[in-house]
């Protein structure tokens, strides 16, 4: 039997009451919300207060040239409640240029490194993040390599190092 989390109808009802109609869908028992980048922070704070105390992951998808996609970047927030075992996926869509969204570090401190990774790989700017540096790539790296328009073999970054020969080693 696959794990099916408990329904989140009560959470959705409370959310609709406060923020109006929210776009939601269910896939294999798991609920997904789509909220605008303007409302995202307030919705996430509301959900945290409603019992979603665990931020499982923050990640992003680049929908460049994706069939049927209207906006380019899709932020993904995976939430869980340790008390009720409810699960919720919150999606926020962003666009070029300057994709940016409010940081959720004030809500869940665990988001710190997750948002740094998304910044590093996708170039999404997190407004209000306490320390938005690259997490994985070297600091002098100039691009965001998980964007779909970034070439697989890079733009020459891996040739920038000094070459040590026998004569100066």
């Amino acid at each position, binding site marked *: 039997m696959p794990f099916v989390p408990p329904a989140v109808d009560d959470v959705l009802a409370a959310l609709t009451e406060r923020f109006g109609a929210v776009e939601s869908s269910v896939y294999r028992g798991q609920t997904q919300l789509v909220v605008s980048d303007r409302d995202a922070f307030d919705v996430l704070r509301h959900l945290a207060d409603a019992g979603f105390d665990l931020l499982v992951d923050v990640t992003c998808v680049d929908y460049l040239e994706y069939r049927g996609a209207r906006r380019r970047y899709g932020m993904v927030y995976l939430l869980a409640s340790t008390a009720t075992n409810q699960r919720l996926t919150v999606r926020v869509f962003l666009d070029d240029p300057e994709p940016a969204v409010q940081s959720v570090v004030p809500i869940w401190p665990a988001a710190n490194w997750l948002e740094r990774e998304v910044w590093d790989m996708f170039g999404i700017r997190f407004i209000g993040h306490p320390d938005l540096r690259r997490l*994985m*790539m*070297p600091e002098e790296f100039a691009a965001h*390599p998980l964007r779909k328009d*970034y*070439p*697989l*073999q*890079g*733009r020459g*970054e*891996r*040739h920038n*190092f*000094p*070459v*040590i*020969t*026998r*004569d100066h*080693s």
Partner: protein
Amino acid sequence: MAMNDLQLPENVFVSRLDSLANWCRKNSLWPMPFATACCGIELMATGASKHDLARFGAEVFRFSPRQCDLMIVAGRVVMKMLPVLQRIWQQMHEPKWCISMGACASTGGVFDTYAVVQGIDRFIPVDMYVPGCPPRPEQLIQAIIDLQDKIQREGTITGREFDTAGRQLRKRALVEAADPLAIDAARNPVLQRQLAAAATGPQS
């Protein structure tokens, strides 16, 4: 007194100092294990009892580059690791050698992405390449034996074989001599004799 007249005891033999130094160096290689991936497991197996690298005098793995003279790069090296690799290489004392173990260290292997260095020989000098993914311990041992041969054959006590810049300068000087025949003759004693014979004129 001629050499032949020397009366040496039976346990004394005469050699060149270079040769003696090479013999000492090749039989006491101290590897620096730069193991970043699965090749590192094979490297450990090579040092362990079954394959027993001690038979070749290279069992003393040291994790301080100051104590090592053979760097074994085992595994893929990512861009972010490369400055570390270069710094460790520069911290090792001369004379030093480098074995690039496995497909990833030698060429990047299957990891042809923005993050992975496509062969460490682009950034540090390499003496031996070991093919394989990962290579078996026998292959690494063969590389160490080959490196020992290379040290015995080419090594000098002052490390002249590492003076690649000097060698390049000497080659450049030959090219700039602008006499193609002279360049060939510099390497070819037969041609030298023919040229000398031609210069003195035909002898009847």
